[in-house]
């Protein structure tokens, strides 16, 4: 039995993780970059996206593709709107004070999580993928008759997993275009550089903040809708992705979007590959400690330019 086929499989699984992680972490990074606040409730926006996707798919029914596409639009918009409300009702009133924002978003985390527990319950529920053909990955080996192709048992992926990777790439490109090529992106970057000067130039900073907070939450929800056909929707599912996106945002350099994406691919791939070799708990311990030491000894992250 060769190791290489398993590494390939590990890489594909890792890329799926990386794709979802990149979307979620870019949302967190955007919020941190523009608003200079840490949103601890980000994982719950992710969870809410998955749960709402289940509700939408359950209500619409019909062909899985129809209900899934509906969920892909409805869930992020709902979650984004909720985040906008939370921003105006809570964060704006405490003037985005960094420490009080962390406390308030911890509160928000428990509110969202527990309300989900009360309404959706503690069961994990799946959403059907819009399409899901199995693809076996061929492998080559030398036999008496020369190089031949064979299909190792169990080595395969699905079209849906590949589509998730592709869709995430398109979305990340769209965000890049939004931030660098549009007027709203320009306004967001101006606010990020200097809030007061942006305000002096007539930018409605409050609206930009609300928009960014909503966009960040919407991205987390979108990532969740993509992953929910692979991983079921559960009210505690936001915890691990939150820690992972923290890790990604820190490694990538706080507030740097390009760094975030690179770090997500790095972490996602290594997560897929490390779990081939180590037990998940040990892998998590090692990853957590590495990140902590990066933050201690390189506070601006691996790719960050300056200390924010």
């Amino acid at each position, binding site marked *: 039995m060769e190791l290489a086929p398993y590494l390939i499989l590990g890489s594909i699984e890792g890329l799926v993780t990386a794709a979802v992680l990149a979307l979620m972490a870019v949302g967190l990074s955007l919020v941190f970059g523009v608003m200079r606040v*840490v949103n601890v409730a980000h994982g719950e926006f992710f969870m809410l996206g998955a749960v709402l996707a289940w509700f939408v798919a359950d209500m619409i029914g019909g062909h899985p593709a129809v209900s899934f596409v509906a969920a892909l639009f409805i869930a992020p918009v709902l979650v984004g709107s909720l985040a906008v409300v939370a921003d105006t009702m*809570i964060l704006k*009133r*405490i003037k985005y004070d*960094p*420490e*009080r924002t*962390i*406390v*308030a978003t*911890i*509160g*928000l*985390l*428990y*509110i*969202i*999580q*527990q*309300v989900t*527990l*009360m309404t959706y319950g503690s069961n994990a529920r799946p959403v059907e993928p819009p399409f899901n053909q199995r693809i076996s990955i061929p492998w080559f080996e030398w036999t008496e008759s020369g190089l031949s192709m064979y299909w190792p048992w169990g080595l395969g992926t699905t079209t849906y997993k590949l589509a998730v990777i592709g869709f995430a790439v398109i979305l990340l490109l769209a965000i890049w275009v939004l931030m660098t090529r549009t007027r709203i992106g320009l306004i967001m970057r101006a606010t990020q550089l200097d809030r007061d000067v942006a305000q002096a130039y007539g930018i409605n900073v409050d609206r930009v903040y609300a928009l960014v907070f909503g966009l960040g939450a919407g991205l987390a929800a979108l990532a969740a809708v993509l992953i929910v056909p692979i991983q079921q929707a559960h009210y505690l599912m936001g*915890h691990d992705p939150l*820690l992972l996106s*923290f890790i990604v945002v*820190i490694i990538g350099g706080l507030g740097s979007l390009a760094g975030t994406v690179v770090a997500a691919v790095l972490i996602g791939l290594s997560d897929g590959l490390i779990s081939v070799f180590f*037990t998940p*708990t*040990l892998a*998590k*311990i090692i990853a*957590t*400690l590495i*990140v*902590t*030491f990066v*933050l*201690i*000894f390189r*506070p601006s992250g691996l790719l960050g330019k300056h200390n924010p």
Partner: protein
Amino acid sequence: MIEKTGMTDARKSLYFHLGLIGALFILQFILPAYHHGNLARIMVLACYAMGYNILFGYTGLLSLGHAMFFAAGMYGMGLPMVHLGWTPEPALISAIVAGVVVSAGIGFLALRTSGVSFMIVTLMFAQAGFLTILYFGEWTRGDEGFVIKQAERVMAGFDLSQPTNRYNAALILFSICLLLTIRLVHSRFGRVMIAIRENEERTHMLGYDVHFHKWMAVIMSGTMAALAGAAYALLFGYAGATFASVQYSIFPLLWVLLGGAGTALGPFIGTLFMFYLIDLSSSFTTAYMLIAGLALVLLTLFLPQGLVGEFRRKVVPWLS
């Protein structure tokens, strides 16, 4: 400010807190069994909150990883008792040593960062600690935890599983932590801690070693939290990984904020209030953490000073 007539503020504050300890002593003869047991638990958890308050309330450093200090004490006590057959006395010392070592090490590393990074670094360290406890499940029994047998929980001839002994042991610990806090706050060292909270730059300019004071604050805070963890294991006979989870890092923050950060009494009031709020709500819903979430949001919005903080501001400015 020293007043010419009557008592100084420090003295008034001391008598006020001594009065509270006296009231808690008398309460054990009045309270029904259920609340008697609750109050013992609250006093131990309040020690945890008081430890947290030294760092957060007085020095102005917000840690999101204090559960690892609490757990250091809890396992520092529980593991040698269960696996090495130690009696509570040496186990208590090993728990305190565990608290000092863990907080000194983590403090040394984490204090290289500040602000939001400090919060995330402490959170991450605590997460690594939590996972480590799960990893060594063979000894720690992971989430399930382990029970310390009643026969082993005898300290200086007192059976600490017996309610009256347990209540008074908790009260003694509570009094020590409370009086230590008050003593600390009025000492020169405590004044520097408060100065760091108010203006770190200026304190540094005045020639104080800010980094050393912060480090000592982490160690004192972490060790008091470890002491509370050790007492919890000893008095209630149980140690489990839940106490090392993120939730138990959030709890002392919540208790201190609710009661009033930077007040000696705040942690106790906050713990008392939140304990009964969750106790009452868990009788009609499993989603009792909803109450904690709502409390955090409402507190940051409307009561940033906390209950005792508001009380001090409006009624008794001399309270420490």
